[in-house]
């Protein structure tokens, strides 16, 4: 039960940060998405995001910062395993499932459904 509450809180707080950015600056949702992925990647590269994942579980992995963290973690792992080539194949290997799902389901839903306006 406790892990659900923490996931709720951590996820909620990360989303609140995004909301503050959108309300107090000129940033659009697209800017916020890019910013959060980049921040997640940087924090993941520094090793500072993993503690948040240990604490918040899905509350840290579901927001797009978590996606950025996966990109960084995958890259670090790739470099450790493959050396220089790991810089190139690490990120996409780690996030392959999510990316594939996004593109394939995106295609599927677009074929089946029409925009309602």
């Amino acid at each position, binding site marked *: 039960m406790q892990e659900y509450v923490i996931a709720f809180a951590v996820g909620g707080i990360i989303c609140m940060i995004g909301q503050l950015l*959108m309300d107090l600056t*000129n940033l*659009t*949702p697209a800017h916020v998405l890019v910013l959060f992925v980049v921040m997640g990647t940087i924090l993941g590269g520094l090793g500072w995001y993993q503690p948040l994942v240990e604490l918040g579980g899905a509350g840290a992995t579901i927001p797009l910062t978590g996606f950025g963290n996966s990109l960084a973690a995958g890259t670090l792992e790739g470099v450790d395993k493959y050396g220089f080539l790991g810089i190139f194949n690490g990120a996409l290997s780690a996030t392959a499932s999510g990316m594939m799902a996004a593109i394939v389901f995106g295609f599927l839903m677009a074929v089946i459904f029409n*925009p*309602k*306006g």
Partner: protein
Amino acid sequence: MLNKRCGKQSIGFVNQPVIISTANIGGPMEGEGLQSKYFDIIMKDNINDLNSWEQCESYMLEQVITRASEKISGSVENLEFILAGDLLNQLMSTHFAMRTLARPFLGLYGACSTMIESMMIGAMMIDGGFANLLAGAASSHHDAAERQYRFPTELGVQRPPVAQWTVTGAGAAILSSTGSGPKLTYATVGKIVDMGIKDPNALGPAMAPAAVDTLITHFSDTGRNPNYYDMIFTGDLGYIGKEMVIKLCAEKGLDLSNNYEDCGCMIYKEEQDTHAGASGCASSAVVFCGYIYQMLCKKNYGKILLVGTGSLHSPTSYQQKESIPCIAHALAIEV
């Protein structure tokens, strides 16, 4: 050669064209709003069983021009010229509507000031003896405009309080050199005014300075002042733009507090949650071609000034960090 120029930017019509008929159409949301009694046609949804938003917008334009012609026991065939425009790239919806109507046609882009621009140029054609019967029309479609200027319609975005809602609708007005009805007496051609607003969600405040510039020029060119008119209408400044106009005019010594309204504030009810009001070519088009025209015909209004306002930015200019250049054109219509 008779000089019909008047002051710096205005024209005084001598053979004053008459507005002999109008027609308007709206989507379901517009049909549930404040203008519901003044629509000729209200569509059941925003696509009307067609294949795209753009085709629906073409359909709206065809309908209003046809309906306006039918009201004077004529047909579209009688129209010597059609002047029309919309908000889309390359005036897409207008061109396909005109392909159907097949009349001599001049396309116009004035953004949300297109309705007034079409009537103004049409009036010049009639006053100059180049035409006897023509139509001016404009349309906009909420989803087609969102998709082009902002975001896809199914994207989960939050609109800020200053944002306005693009009207789904169209309006057409038929101008004639003879007949009875409200007459176009003066026109003031606006020039582009850009006070540096960059936020495409804040179109009302962006356009307000252009409206004020044209109003001031109109009054100085014609020697009139605001209380000459029973009502002054702007096209689509919304609640915030309207407040700005009253403020800026007061600073220049013009009192607009008694007889001024904005068409963008006259379309949606507060519970429809459109935030700062309506915008789009159809904002001025549906309100003028419905409510205002009917008030003029019933002589509830004797003299009005109609100021169309347009924000002339593009998605490209916005992405290149340019500010929003705006324009306003004024038409004096008197019974």
